[in-house]
């Protein structure tokens, strides 16, 4: 009796059984939106860096602190991968010829230990044509070495003319 009633519910006008599509479409759309928006997004994080706070871009005086800082240079080699130097020492590369930023982090930890555990200020000086991912790699290595004071080297702006020229070391 109950089965007969149920069958009647899903029977169309011509007596055939109908498949109800609406709930299925609804669920499919729900799943589609959910999987589009939520699950496979890799979480985004932030790396902190600081620009000159009190000196500004226009100050060209060299302070004692500036002489003691460690400079990470990223040089454009006109090839796929740039060369990275810690001071004047080149940083090792991996098998693909890419700079090994884990090695850079280890070198920075070594420098920190040499200076009695006090992290030296690090300045990242990159060629303008280097891809941004390598700058982030260097910044990531500095953060890994627990260096708190990381800065970026800027081109020097001449206050008189307003023109930009790169600072010389």
């Amino acid at each position: 009796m109950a089965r007969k009633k149920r069958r009647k519910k899903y029977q169309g006008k011509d007596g055939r059984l109908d498949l109800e599509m609406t709930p299925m479409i609804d669920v499919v759309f729900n799943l589609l939106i959910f999987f589009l928006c939520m699950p496979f997004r890799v979480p985004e994080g932030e790396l902190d860096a600081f620009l000159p706070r009190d000196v500004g871009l226009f100050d060209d005086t060299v302070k004692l602190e500036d002489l003691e800082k460690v400079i990470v240079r990223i040089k454009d080699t006109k090839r796929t991968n740039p060369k990275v130097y810690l001071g004047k020492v080149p940083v090792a590369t991996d098998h693909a010829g890419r700079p090994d930023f884990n090695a850079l982090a280890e070198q920075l930890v070594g420098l920190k230990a040499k200076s009695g555990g006090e992290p030296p200020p690090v300045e990242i000086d990159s060629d303008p044509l280097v891809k941004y991912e390598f700058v982030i790699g260097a910044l990531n290595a500095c953060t890994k070495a627990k260096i708190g004071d990381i800065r970026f080297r800027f081109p020097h702006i001449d206050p008189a003319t307003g023109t930009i020229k790169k600072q010389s070391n």
Partner: protein
Amino acid sequence: MARAKKYDIQHQAQLEFDITPMIDIVFLLIIFFMCVTEMSKLDIRAGIQLPIADQARVKDPSRENMVIINVEAPRPGKDVPLIYFKNKRVDLQTLRKYLHVAAELNRERGSDKKGTPPSNVEVIIRADQAVEYQYIQEVMIQAAEERIWKISLVAKQVTTRK
């Protein structure tokens, strides 16, 4: 006459308003608009391939005094990347104007040595990994000229295996 009345009563009893599909559609719209509003609130542009950094830390995306600048990779056949401020495409001059307004609203008071005091705005740069550093540097210069000193660079949090 009586027959017609009887038919009307029977017919009314059979009429049903099916609200299930309406509820389904309403839920779909709610989910859709929730996701879209969340993304537009964060000024996130979806097409950016972020660089990878295992040391990147998640911060509150809705904290105060922050502005997000998106830098998209150049379109095919073009050299210059696209810069977006509050999801609006801008050139460097316009970016400077927007940064100036944001910086002026949050200037430090009483810490001025000479000239303009620093600003407490935090600039968050979401740039594509393939963009040349010179363009990021340009954005940083615009911020530095407005005496903004807090900068955060956004990266994907993927841990590297040794």
